[in-house]
């Protein structure tokens, strides 16, 4: 099988699918031309991510990385969520095929984009290293991220 059991589990039974209408931060990365878009919604109280939802257009691993990324940040502080790396996502899924590593990068970027949006709404002037501006040019950026 192309994917690990963990990936298949998160793909076929994705956690936290949906939207949060009154989200405190929303991030969207990727584009339809490249074949994957991730949109992440955060509900934040006292600097803690109390709820998170996602919607993803993409392949099995794009859905699985979104799903596990939401699990990995839910209940954690914003600062903790910012330390989420694509490598951690890959490890949590028991690995991804080489051609799918960029999906984990998108998941990391989606979280960062949502937090960047939260900062913006709160008027917090903080730079987030590695945050995606939502205009991913899939092939080159995947390459930049060591894909």
């Amino acid at each position, binding site marked *: 099988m192309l994917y690990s059991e963990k990936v298949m589990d998160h793909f*076929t039974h994705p956690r936290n699918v949906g939207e949060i209408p009154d989200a405190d931060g929303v991030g969207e990365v990727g584009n339809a*031309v490249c074949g994957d878009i991730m949109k992440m919604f955060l509900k934040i109280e006292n600097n803690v991510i109390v709820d998170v939802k996602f919607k993803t257009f993409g*392949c099995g691993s794009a859905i699985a990385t979104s799903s596990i990324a939401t699990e990995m940040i839910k209940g954690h502080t914003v600062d903790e969520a910012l330390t989420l790396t694509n490598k951690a996502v890959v490890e949590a899924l028991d690995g991804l095929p080489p051609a799918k590593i960029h999906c984990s990068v998108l998941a990391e970027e989606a979280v960062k984009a949502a937090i960047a949006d939260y900062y913006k709404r709160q008027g917090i002037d903080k730079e987030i290293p590695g945050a995606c501006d939502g205009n991913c040019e899939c092939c080159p950026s995947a390459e930049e991220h060591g894909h």
Partner: protein
Amino acid sequence: MEKRFVYADNAATTAPSREAIEAMMPALTDEWGNPSSLHTKGQRAKELIEQARATIADRLGAMRSEIYFTSCGTEADNWAIRGAAYANVKKGKHIITSKVEHHAVLYTCEQLEKEGFEVTYLDVDGDGRVYPEQVRDAIRPDTTLVAIMYANNEIGTIMPIEEISAVCKEKGVLFFTDAVQAVGNVPIDVHKLGVDMLSLSGHKIHAPKGIGALYIKRGIRIQNLINGGGQEAGKRSGTENVPYICALAKAIEIATDKLGEVYKIARKRDRLIDTVLKTIPNSRLNGPREGRLAGNANFSFDYIEGESMMLLLNEEGICVSTGSACSSRSLEPSHVLLAIGLPHEKAHGSLRISITHETTDEDIDYILQKLPEVVLRLRLMSPLYNG
């Protein structure tokens, strides 16, 4: 509906038939001699090959000496193009093909470009068709070969091969057609078609993988493919795969016998296409409604991606394929879907369902039940869908 296993990826490969497997057995058990050996054991194996060659020639309207066995369709494609290109360099180094060919043809042409040849890649219309006039307009004094597939492996478009062939004949240019997907779907008579070369593959018509053939019209000279013991009239050396050659002949025999029943497959496919387009909003058929392979259906579904569709259908026991980039090694979606003018996002959301004689009405019912569920399930996860 009870869970079923439905194999609907017959454009990728087909199940070897019992008859094809049985046809291999004599060459594996008793007649295992080397066909090049002059003793009885060898000559019995040689006879098996020549019988198979005669059967295939007969079914294609060719002569025995015009059929050459290869290890696969890709090998036959590579050989036809490279062989003809290099045999005719004195005349010129220009080749014409189309943008929707199989990679076995496209990448061979790209390699030839690196080696100093010039290649024209013809556009296709929205249904994936090349027109004879385009070929006529593209032929130059230094053109030596035109290579256009008989039927497209992704969207099932059947090309006007006879007409293109006539243009090539008139212009004195060689014409090769990759008929890997066409054999068993349309009647093939090489003389009526007027082609100079034609490739085919065993595993698309219920023979095992690892066997193909190239028809080379008598009098057409192309470069030898493999040097060695002089098998296949010295053009393609290597001890022959006798069992698979026997299986290929049997498979072609059955496939051509069943040509009269192809309409039954087309009828099932039409029910599939009509129902999918009717019951799933924002879906489209890729490729033509008429003039397509009987077993081929190719759809695009808006807002979702093909690999995830394929995987979820697989979870339901349904095997299909997709032209999405995510299922390929590159980040580009299918070159065929892009060539017919589909935007990237629609090409990513494509699904190919390819059926065969073995596909039952119950199989179609099962697909028609599961596919809308899978599409909706993914759409509800998609940020692009506002249903």
